[in-house]
């Protein structure tokens, strides 16, 4: 079967209220078109001929294709954009069903969360064009395209060294997983989803993280800057409150604030805890999503059921080692040229 790559570009990311309440970057849609152009040129350069694209009301990918003038064949998913998160979920599902080898996404944490709901086992190359971007990478579009091509061409060593299974934070109600986050869950002292973003530090009551790494912004940053983080790759549950030990964290673009941690519990994969605050709203990956009613019991569980994610640099390294860039024939055998 011909190697194929899917592209999902979210036109709505990078425009929400965090442009107003924090210094959120403006990733305008022309910049996204620019990035998609670069992805397409890179795919074409490595011999990918088949691209599956999510249609959107802003025609991001169509415009990119026109401007790039590439010889790629772009197939449009048979779906009608609703201009909501559903589009990304549906697009990912359709791409997985169609058997794409890799999906390149343009968006932030929210977009990738939606894609993760539909992509199944298809590995993702997530390019940051959102606000917090803890999950996707700040990676240049051309390189992302090259990495996606390397995955789609099944180049020796790429799958083995450059694709990891991401963690997930499952939201559990009555024993059933009703939703999930890829990076962080925040219990926010508010009743409504409204404009979705969270920015009022005083309203943060609990933070649950799927991993603890420094070098991110958003709620995921809160534990990443603590001293004495254990090395055993656990998740963490933080209770936030005025009696707590303040930790400075880059909680939003341009916003570095002291967050008082009252209690800290490390979470192993499979472990869950119950949310102690209700009524409230759960923000998943930076966006309010699940209202919790008074008296309702909700658990958050760390699981290993996340999407497969491509580490772009590792993929390019493996592909380089396998000779993809000198022979365009990195499959099996691995005949290294004498350079």
């Amino acid at each position, binding site marked *: 079967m011909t190697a194929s790559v899917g592209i999902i570009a979210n*036109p*709505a990311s990078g*425009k*929400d*209220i965090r*442009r*107003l*309440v924090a210094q959120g970057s*403006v990733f*305008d*849609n*022309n910049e996204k078109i620019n990035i998609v152009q670069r992805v397409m040129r890179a795919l074409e350069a490595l011999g990918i001929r088949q691209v599956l694209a999510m249609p959107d*009301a*802003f*025609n991001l990918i169509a415009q990119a294709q026109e401007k790039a003038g590439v010889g790629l064949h772009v197939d449009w998913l048979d779906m009608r954009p*609703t*201009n909501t998160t559903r589009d990304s979920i549906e697009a990912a599902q359709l791409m997985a069903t169609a058997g794409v080898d890799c999906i390149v996404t343009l968006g932030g944490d929210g977009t990738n969360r939606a894609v993760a709901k539909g992509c199944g086992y298809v590995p993702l190359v997530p390019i940051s064009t959102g606000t917090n971007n803890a999950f996707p990478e700040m990676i240049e579009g051309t390189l992302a395209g090259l990495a996606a091509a390397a995955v789609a061409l099944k180049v020796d060593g790429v799958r083995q060294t450059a694709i990891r299974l991401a963690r997930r934070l499952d939201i559990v109600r009555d024993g059933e997983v009703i939703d999930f986050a890829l990076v962080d869950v925040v219990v926010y*002292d*508010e*009743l*409504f*989803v*409204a*404009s*979705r973003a969270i920015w009022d530090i005083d309203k943060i009551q609990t933070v649950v993280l799927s991993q603890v790494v420094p070098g991110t912004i958003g709620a995921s940053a809160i534990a990443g800057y603590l001293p004495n983080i254990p090395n055993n790759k656990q998740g963490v549950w933080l209770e936030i409150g005025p009696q707590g030990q303040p930790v400075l964290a880059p909680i939003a673009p341009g916003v570095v604030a002291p967050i008082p941690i009252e209690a800290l519990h490390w979470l192993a994969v499979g472990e869950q805890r119950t949310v102690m605050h209700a009524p409230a709203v759960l923000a998943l990956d930076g966006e309010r999503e699940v*209202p919790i*009613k008074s008296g309702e019991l909700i658990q958050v569980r760390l699981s290993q059921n996340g999407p497969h994610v491509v580490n772009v640099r590792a993929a390019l390294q493996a592909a380089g080692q396998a000779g993809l860039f000198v022979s365009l024939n990195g499959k099996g055998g691995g005949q290294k040229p004498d350079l």
Partner: protein
Amino acid sequence: MALSQEALLDLYRMLVRIRTFEERVGEMYYEEKLPAFDIAAGPIPGEMHLYSGQEAVAAGVCAHLRPDDPVTSTHRPHGHLIAKGVDLKKIMAEIFGKKTGLCQGKGGHMHLFDPDLHFGCGGIIGGGIPHAVGAALAIKKRGQDRVAVSFFGDGAANIGAFHESVNLAALWKLPVVFVVEDNLYAISVPKAASTAVRSNAERGAAYGIPGVQVDGQDAVAVYEAAKEAVDRARRGEGPSLIEGLCYRYRGHFEGDAEGYLKEGEKASWKEKDPITILGNQLKEQGWLTDSDAEAIQAEMTSLVGEAETFARESAYPAPEEALEHVFA
């Protein structure tokens, strides 16, 4: 909590008030005009551009405004007027062309001015945008904490005056909030055929001001975004742009055959009705019951009915008054 029960119930009442007013005007408009659609006939002569469907934007923004905050509006002004708190009777009387109306019956539906509440509107596309900036300049020079708001549509965002206004407001850091009501069409021209950038929120970046896109059907989302924008302006931090994605239920004007609409488009937007959405959110919190909702509807129907009666029973201005009030 900013999103309090009281604030959101007021928001809900405002949505119902606007919808009820607009739908009733929409019924009365056709009196005596049919079958041949004589636009000059009946109690409401002339054109009519109704706001039904877009209520969440007007209500969500104006909820944060004080009586002394200036607002400029458009050819589709009723929603903004009502949300600003202008007397329904005086609005209705002006629409009917009666002496007791806001402009003594000489302005009509598109020229509704209330100096006490600092409200103005007009049919010139984009015409109100520089006015709001002028008002904001006066506010800043006087050292006041008032905020000016300009409502306009996706079509107006391509007018030169929009760009000049945003540029100047940004340059001088003026207390003004630009609210683009993107309802997908400028009369019958779809936005994709008129606007190079597809999202007007992004245009804020061209002038160095924050631009935020918000679901214009979700009154609470608009309320939240508008609160931040208005507070920011009041604090002296300058202008911002809010783009509300919304939809007009009744076409550009009354009598619009709407041949340019895509099939099923209106129906799918009506599934996201702002009154239904907010009503459901309030019911989920236990802040509104079905009978509360019925009571609110009855209250608004009655208020609009009073405005209608007032308008119908008021006198027309006398022909001798034709040259009064029309010159500065």
